[in-house]
C-alpha cells in the first residue's frame, strides 16, 4: 500500500521488507520475484516491474589472440639522435661508427635490432646493424638513442649470380623478379643489410617510379654524393634486366618495383648473396 506523498522508494522497500521478514530463505529468494519458474509464489515484484535480464552486449569479444610467433620476425628501430655505436655494450668501449638520426634523403634513419644487453650500471644496450662502411658492420648503442620498435615479418634475398630478387613473407615466397645488379667494376656488395627508406613522387625515369634505400653502400664508389648507398629501384632501361648493369644498385623493371612496394615494409632485412 502506498501512502500518498511518500516516495515510491520507501513504499516498495517496505513491501520487500515485509515479504522477506521472517520468511524462509527460499521464500525470501522468491520474493525477488522475477523467477518465472515459481509461478505459485506471491512475488513482491507484482507491484514492481521485474528486473530485466542482462542485455546482449553491443559487441562480442573474440577468444584470446595468441601471438603468431615466427622465426621470420625481425625488429627495427628509428635512431632518435646521432650516436656513436660501440664495439661492446659498455660506455667507453671503442667507437665503431657514428650513426646519424637522418638519412641523406631526410627520412628518419633506422637500424636493425639484433641483440640486447644490460651493462653493470643497469643501462640497456642494443646491438644494431649499421648503415656504414665497412658493410655488414654492427655496433652497440644505448637503448635511449633509439625510438619505438617496428616488427617486420618479411625478408628480401637478392641472388647476384641468378640475378633474382625474392621476397619472403612469413617464410613463404611472396614475390620474385629478375634484377639488374652491379658490374664487376661497381659491384653490389654482399652480406646482410636492410631497407631503410622509400622514395616516391619524384621525377627521374632512371630510377623508375619508386626507389628504396638500403643500408648497403658501394665499397668502390666511395666518393659518391650522399654516401654511395645502394638502392632498390625501377629503371628506364628494362631491357637490361637481368644483367650486371648498374653502379651497385638493384634494379627492377617498373611493374616489379611497384609490386614489391606493396609487399615490402621499411625495415625489411636484405640478404645479398653471390
Amino acid at each position, binding site marked *: 500500500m*502506498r501512502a500518498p506523498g511518500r*516516495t*515510491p*522508494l*520507501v*513504499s*516498495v*522497500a*517496505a513491501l*520487500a*521488507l515485509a515479504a*522477506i521478514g*521472517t*520468511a*524462509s*530463505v*527460499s521464500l*525470501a*529468494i522468491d520474493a*525477488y520475484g*522475477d*523467477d*518465472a519458474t515459481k509461478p505459485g509464489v506471491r512475488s513482491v*515484484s507484482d*507491484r*514492481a*516491474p*521485474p*528486473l*530485466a*535480464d*542482462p*542485455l546482449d*552486449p553491443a559487441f*562480442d*569479444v*573474440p*577468444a*584470446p589472440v595468441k601471438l603468431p610467433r615466427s622465426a621470420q620476425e625481425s625488429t627495427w628501430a628509428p635512431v632518435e639522435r646521432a650516436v656513436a655505436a660501440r664495439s661492446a655494450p659498455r660506455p667507453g668501449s671503442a667507437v665503431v661508427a657514428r650513426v646519424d638520426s637522418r638519412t641523406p634523403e631526410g627520412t628518419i634513419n633506422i637500424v636493425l635490432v639484433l641483440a640486447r644487453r644490460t651493462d653493470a650500471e643497469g643501462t640497456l644496450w642494443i646491438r644494431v646493424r649499421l648503415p656504414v662502411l665497412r658493410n655488414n658492420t654492427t655496433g652497440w648503442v644505448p637503448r635511449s638513442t633509439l625510438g619505438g620498435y617496428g616488427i617486420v615479418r618479411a625478408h628480401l634475398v637478392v641472388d647476384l649470380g641468378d640475378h633474382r630478387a625474392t621476397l619472403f613473407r612469413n617464410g613463404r615466397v611472396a614475390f620474385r623478379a629478375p634484377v639488374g645488379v652491379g658490374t664487376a667494376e661497381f659491384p653490389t656488395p654482399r652480406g646482410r643489410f636492410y631497407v631503410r627508406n622509400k622514395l616516391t613522387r619524384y621525377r627521374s625515369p632512371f630510377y623508375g617510379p619508386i626507389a628504396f634505400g638500403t643500408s648497403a653502400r658501394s665499397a668502390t664508389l666511395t666518393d659518391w654524393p650522399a654516401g654511395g648507398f645502394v638502392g632498390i629501384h625501377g629503371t628506364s632501361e628494362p631491357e637490361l634486366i637481368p644483367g650486371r648493369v648498374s653502379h651497385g644498385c638493384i634494379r627492377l623493371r617498373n611493374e616489379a618495383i611497384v609490386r614489391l612496394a606493396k609487399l615490402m615494409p621499411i625495415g625489411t632485412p636484405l640478404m645479398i648473396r653471390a
Partner: protein
Amino acid sequence: MAGITGLESVGDPASRDRFLTRALVAGGTLLAGGALVAGLPKLAASAQSPEQDAEIFNFALLLEHLQAAFYGEAADTAELDGELLEFAKVVAEHEREHVDYLQEALGSSAVEAPKTFFGAATTDPDAFAAAAITLEDLAVAAYNGQAANLTKGALRAAATIVSVDARHAAWIRAIVGRPAASQPVDQPLSRAQVLAKLDESGFLREA
C-alpha cells in the same frame, strides 16, 4: 542522475548522501514507471528508477552480507593461515565496507543479513578458495548483469564495488596458483540466475 558530476569519492559519507538523496527525492511515481513497462516483453530493458535502484541495491546487499559473513568467519576463526588468512582479513574488511555503504544508502529499506552456514569453507584451504572464487565471480556477474538496469548515479557507485570484487576473484586464484584471469570478458547473470546459484551453494540457511 542529473547533477552528479565529478569524481565523488564513494567512500566519503557526504558524497554518498548527496547522490542518494537525489535518488530518493527524484519525484515521479512508480505508477508512471509501472505503466511504461507493463506490457513489454520480459527481455526489455526495464525503465530505470530510484525504486529499482533500491531493489537492485538490496539484491547486491544480500550478496555483500554473504561475503562479509564468509570472510568474517574465516578471519575470526583463523584456522586458515598465511596468505589465505591475510586475504580473508583484507577482503572481510572490504566486504564490510560494502555492506555499510549499501545499508546507509538504503536506510530502513535495507534487507537484513541472511542466516548463513559455511562449514568447512571458512577453515579448509581448498574449500575456502573454491567458495571465495564462487562468491566473488558471482558478485561480479550480478553487478554486471544489473548495470543497464541502474540509474546513472547508482551505476557509478556500483562500478566502484564490482571491480573490487573482480580483484578479489583474481587474487584468490593467484594465491592458489590458478591463472588469475583468463577470459576476455566477464559474462553477466540475471538476478534469478544469481539467486539460483546461491541456492545451489548451500551457504544460505533458513531463518
